[in-house]
């Protein structure tokens, strides 16, 4: 009790500092409402409006027009010719690649 006076002032100082810090710590930190509205909420609302307005047209079936026989025939022909190389039954398979016909090795006796 005798040396209260000396640390008294530092105690008061510390107490004041603590009080100040407590005040600062209890500050409610929120984004300013305006910032969050324009940067986040509004963007989503706009996208929703766009989707709602266009959903009907996106859902409509797309009608493919009837093709002329010449076009259809030409497409079939190009498909066949383009894939001809990939068709093993057409091009034949050498026995080295043929899983159904392993190459038989000759054994020299």
């Amino acid at each position: 009790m005798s040396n209260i006076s000396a640390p008294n002032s530092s105690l008061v100082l510390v107490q004041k500092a603590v009080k100040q810090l407590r005040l600062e710590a209890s500050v409610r930190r929120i984004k300013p409402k305006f910032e969050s509205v324009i940067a986040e909420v509004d963007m989503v609302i706009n996208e929703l409006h766009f989707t709602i307005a266009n959903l009907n047209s996106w859902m409509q079936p797309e009608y493919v027009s009837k093709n002329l026989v010449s076009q259809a025939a030409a497409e079939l022909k190009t498909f066949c010719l383009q894939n001809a190389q990939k068709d093993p039954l057409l091009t034949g398979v050498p026995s080295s690649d043929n899983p159904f016909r392993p190459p038989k090795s000759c054994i020299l006796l």
Partner: protein
Amino acid sequence: MGEMEELRKEMENLKDQITAARKTFQDSTLQEAAAGVTVVGRVQLKTRKTLRGHLAKIYAMHWGTDSTLCVSASQDGKLIVWDTITTNKVNAIPLKSSWVMTCAYAPSGNLVACGGLDNMCSIYNLKGKDGNVKVMRELAAHTGYLSCCRFLSDTEIITSSGDCTCVLWDIETGTQKTVFAGHQGDAMSLGVSPDFKYFISGACDFTAKLWDIREAECRQTFGGHESDINAIGFFPNGNAVITGSDDATCKLYDLRADQELLTYQDSSIMCGVTSLAPSKSGRLLLAGHDDFNVNIWDMLKAERVGVLAGHDNRVSCIGVSSDGMACCTGSWDSFLKIWN
């Protein structure tokens, strides 16, 4: 009675309209478009493997998507899953009803299905927990025999039946999701498009119908055959359909031009087509006939470019593997042959 007459007249009018509309789009023929293409040389395929094991007529076979396993169904009451490269039997599944007419392999490889005169489609799980193959579901609601079935995924399967309808089933619940009615005769075969959005069915009313799976509607009907359509398949790009019929011809129909492009017939062929499969590029069409042979056609030129003769009885089923490496034929002589 007056209304019937009116409706009949309207039917005739609409049919004439459709024929006329198709004619206006027929500005050319496939023969003209393919005139510059040379005919494929003689195609000679040899039997590489013979899968022996069935004891009675084989009625159906289907390749798995991995191109090594295939399943075959025979009226000895067995469904056999074969490893085609080693000719080993991976699974031999005994069936409750031996009158089986069709079988299918799921794209995932986990399930196989079969059905026949029992009017039911039985789904078997190949990858059961304890290694046993058991019946997973029995889909029963058809009032006629099951002529063909094809998986869309592990949860959906489409079946065609002798009661003139095709049905889309939900395998988990075992219920019918959609019934596709419209054929006037037994639906004999079906094929699913490569994008799984459409399927086609061929029936004994001499027509083939294109169905939209999601909308549950028949989009197009193709006539022209003079007898029952026994076999049907999609062209590899999904834009054309090939049908094989008891009148010994095969026809190629284009879906977008909505008409027949070509007929594959020959005066020397007099027996009906039982099954068909296009090769991977679509250039070759392999058709199995009642005269024990398989004829190979050049699809663009409509010329016969090969014959596979090796079976001692009617060729009942044919399939080309998904990588196009081989074709498998099954016959009433109880053997399956792999050709390459």
